């Protein structure tokens, strides 16, 4: 698994690429815990490149969500893969996480800092 980290509109956007499971959770935790030390606490977890998730992966998403919230940060999830969404629904995480179909929608929903909206970014991503 590879993990991309990008800063956009004051949010850190973390995009794991591949499988988030018992084998790759340590890398994911390492990346997200490092970001936790960042003064910009708000986070978007872009899971559109995720191909597989197990209960360990779900646990790592919850851990990240809880740590960012404990630091008074905000978290939004981007999921367009019906299979990943199905797994989250089975454990009722869809009732807790704020889930959006693309990064642009997530940025709009969580309130881009200063009210600035990068229209080009919104229209290009995941279209």
């Amino acid at each position, binding site marked *: 698994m590879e993990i991309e980290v990008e800063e956009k509109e004051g949010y850190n956007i973390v995009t794991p690429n591949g499988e988030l499971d*018992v*084998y790759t959770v340590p890398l994911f935790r390492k990346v997200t815990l490092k970001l936790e030390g960042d003064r910009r606490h708000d986070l978007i977890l872009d899971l559109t490149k995720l191909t*597989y998730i197990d*209960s360990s992966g779900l646990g790592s998403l*919850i851990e990240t969500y809880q740590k960012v919230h404990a630091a008074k940060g905000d978290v939004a999830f981007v999921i367009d893969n019906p299979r990943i969404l199905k797994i989250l629904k*089975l454990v009722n*995480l869809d009732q*807790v996480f704020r889930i959006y179909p693309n990064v642009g929608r997530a940025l709009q929903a969580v309130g881009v800092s200063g009210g600035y909206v990068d229209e080009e970014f919104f229209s290009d991503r995941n279209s």
Partner: protein
Amino acid sequence: MKSYWRHEDRTRISVSLPCRKKSLGKARGIVKKFAVSHGFAGDAEDIALAAQEALKNIIQHACPADNTMRFFCTISDGTMVVEVVDYGMGFDLAAVEEEPSSPLALHGRGLKLINGLMDEVSIKSGQNGTVVHMEKRLKEHV
């Protein structure tokens, strides 16, 4: 121990793997391949994930003395059965089946996933070990 698997006939496979995390990916691959080869391509990922979660429970909780976890895949009358077996110390079923207190609880969602992914699930656990029995029916047989 070394891992091995044996096709007892075209409709049944038995697999033994060392009781460690490294075995989970191998088990997932074996279950998925077996499911696809018997017409369960649409559900193969679900079945393989359920099997992996059951095996992960063994690694985390059962600690069998022979350091081995076993599973069997069987096709019968349009149903794929996966049985995950260990000869460990068993566990308190009531405690395991208890719902996590919150969706945000850090642990305890493996069994919930198994129940959601498979059509039928039953667990027998005692002093001599545990059997997790899981069934998935072919879509056209549902």
